[in-house]
Each structure stands twice: as structure tokens, then as C-alpha cells.
């Protein structure tokens, strides 16, 4: 899956220059004049890996406002801010809200490219983690209710005998369930299953 660099700057000249610079190092770039135009692509922004290069001072909604709105909407695209007149409070606010970088125009091209690179790496990593978690969740969802109970107790470190007593099952039955859990979750060892249970519970949906 390719990643896209979204640019929002109201100045056409700056937009074109940024596009050219980013394309010259092989990025896929989409540029917009204002945040409203960008938000029409909200769906793709959620789906595609990428990052946002955002002018702070824009007509209509400002860059900082957009940053807040995207965060509220759960769109976690990393943001690189650029500004014609960077003042300290503004950059502090942007960085606190999770911006990757805050660059003052005119900036060194390497600074921008480095920031974009970091942003894309972050987003790719984040998306890979999200995909893996989704796959794990799908495997967990394929377990029966009894198997989930057994998995939770196994992950909690209980022995088959204890689980049998707890669930009022024969120890043999527990062993069958346990083998089934290991197979469905594609866990090669007990520690791996424990880690899977941890990640699922950290995500708030598992055990």
C-alpha cells in the first residue's frame, strides 16, 4: 500500500513548490487549498497510510483547528506544520497536540523531507500494528464462548486441573479446548498466547 502526503496551503506557489519537492524524492502527493477541500477526502485519509503537511494560517479553519478536529474524529494522520511566521506559543500548542515538526518558511528542504519521512514511518508502523491487532481480533472472534473462558484462565497462568475445577469440566475436556485455542489463535507456544491475550485486553476488547 502506498502512502500519500497530503498538503494544505492557501498559497498556490508554495503548494506547487512543495508538490514538486516531495515528488522529486518519490512521494505521492495530493495538495489542497483549504481544509474543507481536504476533508472531502476524509474516508481516504482514514484508509491510506500517509501524513499531512499543513500551513498554520489558512483561510477559514486554521491548521491548528484541523489538527484538533482530525484527532477528535479518530483520524491519526501525523502532521508536519509549516508557517510563514512561527511564533513560539503556536508551535508549542501544535507540538503538544502531537505534531511531528513545526517548520518556518522558508525552510531547508532536508528538514521538511526528514519530517515527512518520520511522519510516514510513524503512520506505516501505526497502521501495521493496527492491521495485526485486527487479525488477532478476528482469530479471537472465531473462538467459542467456552474456548474464550479457557483461554482467559490459561493466560492467567492456571493449570489444566485448576481450570477443570473452576469450569466444572473434566481435565481431558479442558485439554481439548486448550489445543483448539492454540490452533485457532495460531499460537506456537504458551507465552505467545499470553502475549496475544495481553494485546487483546489492552485494546479493550479481549478477555
Amino acid at each position, binding site marked *: 500500500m502506498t502512502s500519500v502526503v497530503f498538503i494544505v496551503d492557501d*498559497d498556490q*506557489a*508554495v503548494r*506547487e*513548490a*512543495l508538490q*514538486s*519537492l516531495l*515528488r*522529486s*524524492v518519490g512521494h505521492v502527493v495530493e495538495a489542497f487549498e483549504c481544509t474543507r477541500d481536504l476533508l472531502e477526502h476524509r474516508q481516504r485519509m482514514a484508509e491510506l497510510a500517509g501524513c499531512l503537511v499543513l500551513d498554520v494560517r489558512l483561510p477559514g479553519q486554521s491548521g491548528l483547528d484541523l489538527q484538533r478536529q482530525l484527532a477528535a474524529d479518530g483520524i491519526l494522520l501525523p502532521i508536519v506544520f509549516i508557517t*510563514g*511566521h512561527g511564533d513560539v506559543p503556536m508551535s508549542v500548542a501544535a507540538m503538544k497536540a502531537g505534531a511531528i515538526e513545526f517548520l518556518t*518558511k*522558508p*525552510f*531547508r*528542504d532536508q528538514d*521538511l523531507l526528514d519530517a515527512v519521512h518520520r511522519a510516514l514511518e510513524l503512520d506505516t508502523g501505526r497502521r501495521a500494528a493496527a492491521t495485526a491487532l485486527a487479525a488477532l481480533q478476528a482469530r479471537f472472534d472465531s473462538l467459542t464462548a467456552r474456548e474464550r473462558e479457557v483461554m482467559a484462565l490459561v493466560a492467567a497462568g492456571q493449570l489444566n486441573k485448576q481450570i477443570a475445577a473452576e469450569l466444572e469440566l473434566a481435565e481431558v475436556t479442558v485439554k481439548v479446548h486448550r489445543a483448539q485455542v492454540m490452533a485457532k489463535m495460531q499460537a506456537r507456544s504458551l507465552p505467545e498466547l499470553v502475549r496475544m491475550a495481553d494485546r487483546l485486553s489492552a485494546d479493550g476488547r479481549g478477555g
Partner: protein
Amino acid sequence: MLVSNSPPNREQKLFALGVVAVLLGAMLLVAPFARNRLEGSEPMVLAYTAAVFTTEMITAALLLSLFAVQRSPAILVLAIAYLYSGFMAVPWALSFPTVVASLGLAEAGQQTTASIAAMRRIGCPLFLLAYAMLRRSGEVPAGRMVPAMIVGSVAAVAVVVAGVTWTILGNQDLLPVFVDEGRRITHVWMYVPIVALALYAVLIVLLGLFGRSVLDLCLLVVICALTIDLVLLSFVSAGLQFSVGWWAGRLYSLAAASVVLIVLLAEAASLSARLARSAAAERRAHEDRMVTLQAFSAAVAHEINQPLASMVTNADAGLRWLARERPDVEEARAALTRIARDGHRAGKVVEGIRTTFSKRDEDRGQLNINQLIRDVLDCYRDECRAAHVVMQTELDPDLPLVSGNRVQIEQIIANLVTNAIDAMRTVTDGERVLRVTSTAMSAGEVVVSVADSGIGLPPAHADRLFQPFFTTKPNGLGVGLTVSRLILEAHGGRLWASDNAPAGAIFHFALPCAARPAPFAEERAR
């Protein structure tokens, strides 16, 4: 404008006339009772003397401080007159028998009091005469001379008064017989009022006919009061000490001593109020200008920065397109094209700023630059006085008119004058002179020069002087000269700087003369 150099207006003249009339009226009221003796009033002499002494000393001090600023020898002589009169009042009071007795001193001879009074009577008008003669003489050069002259004058007057007193006390036998055994004045005394009155008459003529300032008018009132005093004392009361007429004379003398003091104090009060008002107004105007300039420079910075940023980014992108394994010439070409376009855009911004200062052609008029200079300098008069800066002008009377925007040209002159004053604030040795000249040049230009005797132009800064945001002032924005130059260029003029001798800087600007209508054009048209 000071009392010493501003001409009196109609109200002030009428008021002075009214005061003299009241004084005369009071004399006529007193005349019938003039020879009634007020028994036991002799100790009052001390209180009276204290009042006269204090009033005259304060007046002298104010006049000396006025001299320190104005450096007019006439003012110094006037201060000396008050010092002399005040100092002489002390031995005069101390020579009264009851006063001497109450202080436990040895009684002085009978002629002592009258002799001192005679010296005081004749001395004061002589000094006033010197003042009247010196009024038109030039200023004393500024520098260390002025404080030395002040201290020297005070010391000299004190020495003279002490010497006169000592001589009178030590040569009792040689003193003229001014009073007889019955404490009545003799015919010898009559020479004193006659000489004094003659001097007063000369002074009244001199100041009345040739007096030009409020101070001259005040002195006229003073002399009138002194004349009445002398008439009451010597003629109406027949020199009878402690009589109603004698005491009325004392009151007139006190009134005379107070006139100049009252006027000087009133002026000081109104001056300080005016100074505070104008300083506040100047500060407000300055802040307004700063806000405008700050908004203006922020806008310019943004407008220039955008194309600049895209030029830099385009250049970087072009380099990267060319640095690829297979250089992409088309992309690089596109980037270069965009750089050119952005350069033109930045150029348009600069052009826009230029035309902002020149586009209002309808605001342009035919300007009398001399009048403009005078108007601006009027606004800075109080500030100059506060900064001890002497203002000089040398305006070419045959200056042709100039076509331009009045507000903008005024702004330039004001800017240069402010700079000049600021440049002299730290000067402690030597004069602080602001000199504005206007000259008509044969090339069809009017050149205005603003010279100061300030810190001058440091050679290190010479080339940066007109650059935006360059300033040597702690709170300066560094746009004054830049904006001035932009305005002048929009008017087809020039702005430059040179060194002043022996110290300081001169800023010159040239403006082309307005196209003069051809002579007799009207006649020919008819």
C-alpha cells in the same frame, strides 16, 4: 515662547495698565493720612525685610535659571538687580535703632539707614537701565562660561553689598546728612529721590517705547510701583519714618518686588503644563506611528516571505530532480519557471509598496517647504527646550514651490528632526544645536538639510543607515529612514546623509520643484 522674548498681547497690556491705575488710586487714598505716625510699628520692619528679601532672592534664582537656558546678558543683569536689592535690604533693616537694640548690636550712626536706602534707591534703576540697554545684545555662547557667570555674579553682588555696608559703617563722619536730629529728612536727601525719579523716567520711556516682551511690561509696572513708593516716601509723607505714607511705600516696594516673581511663577506653571501636554501628545502620536509601522512591516514581511519560501523550495526541488539517477529535466525546468514567476510576484509586492506612497496623486499639492519646516519645528519647540536643544533655521526666502503630499513630506521632516534631537540626547559637552536649512538649487531642486551636533554617523553603520530595521535607538524600529526614502523616491526626490563639523550629522533631502507656470502665460492666453 518665554516671558523674556514673547511680545505681550492686548489683555496683558490692559491688565498692566489696570494694575498701575489701582496703584495710583491707592496712593491718592493714602495721601491724606500719609504723615500720621504709626507708633510702635518699627519692629515690623524685620518682617517686611524678610518678605522683600525672600521674594527678591526667589526672583533672582528664577531669572538666573532663565539665563542658564536663554543665555541673554540682559536677563543676567536683571537677576543682578534683584540680588543687589535683596542683599541691600538686609543691612538696611539691621540699621534701625530698635532692631539693632533687639538684636543686641551696637547702634549704628544716624545716617546709616538713609545712606543704605540711598544706595539701594540709586543702584537698582542703574541695573535696570543696563538691562534695558542689553536687551538686544546677542546670546552668551553656551558651555562652562554660563555657570561660571552665574556663580560669579552672585559672589560679586554679595561682595559689593558687603563692601558698601562696611564703608558706610566705617565712615559715619563722612556720610551726607540725610536726616536731622528729629528723624526728619533734610534737603540733602531730596537729591536721592530726584535722581532716582529721573532714572525711573528714563526707564519708563525706554521700556514703554521700545519694550517688546512680557518681561519688559512687567518691569514697567515694577518701575511705576517704585515711583509711587518714592513719591509717597519722599514727598507725600515728607520722609517721616513709620508713618502711614512710609508704610504704604514699603507695601508698594514689596508689590514691586513680587510682580516679576508672580509672572515668572505663572509662566513656569503654564510651561510645565504645556510641556506635559505636548509630551503626552507626542508620545501618543509616536505610538500610533509605531503601531501603523509594525502592522505595515508585518504585512510586508508576509507578502515577501511567501514567494521567497516557494522560490527556495522550488530551487531545492529542481536540484533534486536534476540529482536523480536519471535527471528529470522537464521537472527541473518547471521548477525554474516557477522560481521566475515567484520572483516577479515578489517584485510586484515591492512595487505595490512604492505606489502606496505615491498613488494618491489627488493628495498632492503645491507645497511651501519653508512653511512646512516652520510648522514641524513649532511642534518640536517644547521637546527641544526639554532636551536643551537650540533650534536654528536658515530658510531660503526665494524657495520655489514643490509638488508633493503635504502629510508625507511633513512626516519626513518630523522624522529627521526627531532623529536629530535623539542623536543629541547623550551629548554632555558642547552645544546641542538643531539647524534646519532650505536651499533652492539651480538644478530645479529644493534641498532641505537637518543638521545636529549629536553623536554623528559611526562609519561602521554608514552603509546600513537606510536599510530597513536598522536602528541605533534602544526602542527604534528602524523603518523611519527607509519609509522616508521610499516617500522621497515616489516624489522623484533623494535622501542622503553627511557628517557635520565639528560633530554630528546632516541629513539632506532633495525634491524637484513644481513645474512653474511660464511667466506671462496668462497674459499671452488672453
